[in-house]
């Protein structure tokens, strides 16, 4: 597989590249069973995490992935208050060029910032979430987890995303990849949180009753992103939980039907789900976290700094 410089979104990945990343994640995950969980693959390379938004989980996942490949990891702390976009981001790029960084993991509240950085650096850029646009490694780890659950082939399986779809780059990227892998997808959300630009053939529901009738195999609970909602999209968190959350009653029904449950984390307990969901035998949240490290190792292994191609720089 010819490596690429950047991973900015799911759309630009070819089928061959997708297969390469997902297939290689299996031996990377197997490394976790060894006494020495580290391999020397990226020895002497530097991975810089450049997060303009707080995210302990994703940042840690990339850090662990990079460390297990023996790369040096540097956290570049960015004061969100001093950064709007554009010029200051380019200043940061100059700094990281001077530091001779090999990989940059970027998260930013504005869509397109990882692309801007990728165009202006020889380092490999990985989009760790930008605006409402994309979160490709989350989509890859979600599909990797689904492939584990469904014995390698997810075609025909039914997955429903529940919650704040409008503000969710996770829903956007994971939904896109699930559909590409041949899954049927549906949405359940308050009407104020359903994007207007959804493809016509995605089922959109307003109640759990409609969702049950659709017979999902997987339910993907999205995090309610309070920090992104400048205006209220539903009356209260309690109301959201009653209407759209996974309550104990709904968990009982989901358990009877053997439905798998996913969540990108961090969980707002009592909002998206109750505590009992966390101990549900088909809750995949911990598996998603573990797989996130393996998939990110696979991405770092595949990318190659300084190997920009026309397709890679979007």
């Amino acid at each position, binding site marked *: 597989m*010819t490596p690429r410089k950047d991973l900015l979104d799911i759309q630009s990945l070819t089928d061959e590249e997708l297969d*390469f990343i997902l297939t*290689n994640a*299996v*031996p990377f995950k197997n490394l976790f069973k060894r006494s020495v969980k580290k391999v020397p*693959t990226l020895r002497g390379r530097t991975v810089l995490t450049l997060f303009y938004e707080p995210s302990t989980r994703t940042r840690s996942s990339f850090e662990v992935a990079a460390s297990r*490949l023996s790369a040096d990891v540097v956290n570049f702390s960015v004061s969100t208050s001093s950064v709007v976009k554009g010029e200051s981001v380019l200043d940061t790029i100059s700094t990281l060029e001077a530091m001779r960084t090999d990989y940059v993991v970027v998260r930013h509240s504005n869509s397109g910032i990882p692309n801007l950085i990728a165009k202006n650096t020889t380092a490999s850029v990985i989009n760790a979430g930008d605006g409402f646009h994309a979160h490709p490694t989350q989509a890859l780890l979600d599909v990797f987890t689904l492939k584990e659950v469904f014995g390698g082939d997810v075609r025909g399986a039914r997955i429903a995303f529940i919650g704040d779809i409008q503000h969710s780059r996770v829903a956007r990227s994971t939904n896109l990849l699930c559909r590409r892998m041949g899954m049927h997808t549906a949405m359940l959300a308050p009407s104020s949180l359903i994007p207007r630009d959804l493809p016509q053939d995605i089922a959109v529901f307003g109640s759990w009753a409609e969702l049950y009738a659709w017979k999902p195999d997987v339910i993907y609970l999205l995090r309610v992103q309070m920090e992104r909602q400048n205006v209220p999209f539903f009356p209260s968190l309690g109301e959201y939980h009653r209407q759209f959350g996974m309550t104990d009653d709904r968990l009982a029904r989901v358990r009877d039907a053997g439905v798998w449950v996913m969540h990108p984390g961090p969980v707002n307990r009592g909002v998206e789900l109750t505590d009992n969901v966390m101990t549900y035998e088909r809750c995949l949240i911990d598996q998603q976290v573990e797989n996130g490290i393996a998939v990110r190792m696979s991405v770092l292994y595949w990318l190659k700094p300084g190997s920009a191609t026309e397709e890679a720089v979007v």
Partner: protein
Amino acid sequence: MPDKEPILTKQDIAQRIERIASAIEEKKPGKNLALVGIHRRGVPLSERVYALLKPKLPDLRIGRVDISLYRDDLKSLEIMPKLVGSDIPFDLDGMHVILFDEVMHTGRTSRAALEELLDHGRPGKIELAVLIDRGGRELPMCADYVGQGVEVADGQRVSVRFEEVDGEDAVYVTEGGRR
């Protein structure tokens, strides 16, 4: 495959493998012996030796290492190798391990395999067995069991083909760089 005749035929290869198996048996290894093939063609080589020795050494174990993540030339590769992964289905601590590779040349593959093996555990002893030793070391490594020594020029390539991987058993010397 090349038009030219192989330097080793199927029969020659079988004979060399029997010789390696006999040499291992002669050393009267203990109960803790394991054969580990280096992916890719070290694996069928180890499996064939295993098939010969297993009836005589019932406790013999077998495994595989994929050294892709331990290569020292990954930065320069244009095509990244797809990973198969290693499979060591036994506790390595204290084991007598024999690593198998089809050709020994610079010694870099053996170094990578050694490093990987030591990350899986702490074997009591490690030896190396190769079907072909073509010389040309760049690292201070040597094999304990050699099927055949072959002298070839720098620009030539020794290509070992196994039925399990390539559909035939043969060893060729061809023009065109390292193996």
